[in-house]
């Protein structure tokens, strides 16, 4: 069985007018089917308001489907008895690193999750050390989060989730508020977790360059999944992505334009190296 599977997932929220009366319903997610297996690195792309963050919140019982079901490791997310097991299995990292820091020093913040799970003190210390080492933040364990850079804060947030020993981590636009250096740090940390620790990663983003590393990409727009496939497959459909208010990575775009101009370049070029090789051969 897949780690996460969503079947015909629909989420509606109530629209209200100025007086607070019900005005109608808006569908943030419309009949979404999603299958994510263990160890995958999945990227969910989509423009603002496409419902990708709402989808993410369904994966660890922060929101419940209006219709349809979401299963995490075989548990229905609406099952009240399993809610803590589900949240333990699916960790969440949010966009704003400042708004998810609970502790006054890094170490305490990482310990917050395991403390809530009622784990023995000695074990918590081990977990904190282990997860801070994984994101290369162990040297900063006694620092106050307010003194860290954005990228470092976000890595601490990832460590905080890791300390709960999740099966899967959902990252909701973790790099949207970071500078290029911080962005690179976070993406490197995420890829490391996926490659080395084999943790399932669901990365929600609208940065195309980050999605290149994924095993599978889902593209969302207006609550639907409009495209899916490997990065190569998805990024070779440049025009279709444009229609969904998304861009392709610069290199892919360049390759696309060159191919249009008559050069012999296959579609779906993702990295600079690939493009160089192609150009040298032709």
């Amino acid at each position, binding site marked *: 069985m897949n780690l996460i599977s969503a079947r015909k997932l629909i989420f509606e929220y109530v629209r209200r007018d100025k007086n607070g009366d019900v005005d109608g319903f808006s569908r943030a997610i419309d009949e979404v089917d999603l299958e994510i297996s263990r160890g995958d690195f999945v990227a969910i792309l989509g423009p603002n308001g496409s419902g990708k963050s709402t989808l993410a*919140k369904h994966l*660890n019982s*922060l929101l419940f489907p209006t219709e349809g079901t979401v299963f995490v490791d075989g548990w229905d997310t609406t099952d009240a008895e399993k809610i*803590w097991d589900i*949240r*333990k299995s699916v*960790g*969440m990292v*949010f966009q*704003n690193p*400042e*708004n*998810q*820091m*609970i*502790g*006054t*020093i890094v*170490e*305490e913040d990482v*310990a*917050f*999750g*395991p*403390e*809530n*799970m*009622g*784990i*023995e*003190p000695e074990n*918590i*210390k081990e977990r*904190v050390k282990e997860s801070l080492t994984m994101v290369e933040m162990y040297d900063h364990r*006694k620092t*106050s*989060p*307010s003194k860290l850079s954005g990228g470092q804060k976000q890595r601490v947030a990832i460590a*905080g*989730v890791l300390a*709960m020993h999740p099966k899967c981590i959902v990252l909701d636009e973790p790099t949207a508020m970071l500078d290029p250096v911080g962005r690179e740090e976070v993406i490197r940390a995420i890829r490391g977790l996926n490659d080395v620790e084999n943790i399932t990663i669901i990365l929600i983003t609208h940065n195309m360059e980050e999605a290149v590393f994924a095993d599978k990409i889902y593209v969302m727009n207006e609550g639907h999944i409009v495209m899916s496939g490997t990065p190569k497959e998805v990024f070779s459909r440049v025009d279709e992505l444009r229609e969904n208010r998304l861009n392709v990575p610069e290199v892919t775009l360049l390759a696309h334009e060159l191919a249009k101009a008559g050069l012999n370049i296959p579609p779906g070029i993702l990295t600079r190296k690939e493009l160089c090789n192609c150009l040298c051969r032709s």
Partner: protein
Amino acid sequence: MIREITLGQYYPADSVLHRLDPRVKLFGTLLYVISLFLFQSFTGYIVATVFLASLIAISHVPVKFMFRGLKAIFILLIFTAVLNMFLTPGRELVSFWKITITIEGLRFAAFMILRLTYLITGSSIMTLTTTPSNLTDGLEKSMRWMNILKVPVHEIAMMMSIALTFIPVLLEETDRIIKAQQARGADFESGNLIHRIRALVPILVPLFVSAFRRANDLALAMESRCYRGGEGRTKMRPLRYERRDIIAYLVLALYIACIITVGILF
């Protein structure tokens, strides 16, 4: 300018005071503050001074940090002193127009200043040597008995520690809002008091809106990290009394005994 405000300012160092259990420090500070009002004599001040000075000495915190907290209450200090000086009846020292300064008044004013200074410095030692989270931990554990009275001790402690975490974040935010408003021509520095207070509204409104948004984000983050209140929660570093804490309690008892003796004898 706004960054200079320090609240719950912790000074990282490695001293006996830093390592003490926060409960000892909380209880000690409380007793110390009470003790300052248990004597009237000069000798009492000598005992209190010696105690305070030795605490400062073993805390490894630079003295200037100790007195930083006094700046905030400087006006209050002067005000109390002046009032005491003029309004205490007794033997006349100087008198002009309708105002008389008495010897008792002068004495009382001096003592009042000393008392308030000691009070603030004493509590500064506690906040300087204890991390905010340690402090809330200590509060939570020593107030646990209030659970019987249906006081939500854990929730209050959690709120306190979140408030402390968010002070720097919100200060930065305020700074940013002020600059944004100034960039659009808002004037916070001229005009009379009412004018200035009204100028604060465009700062406070966005600040509150953003605080609510942050609170919402934080609640989500806490929930997704399995937070479900104090029940069944463990601690990475549970508070446990060590030998040094017992010794600290003994020292404290000795000090209180001294103060009471002095208070009765002199």
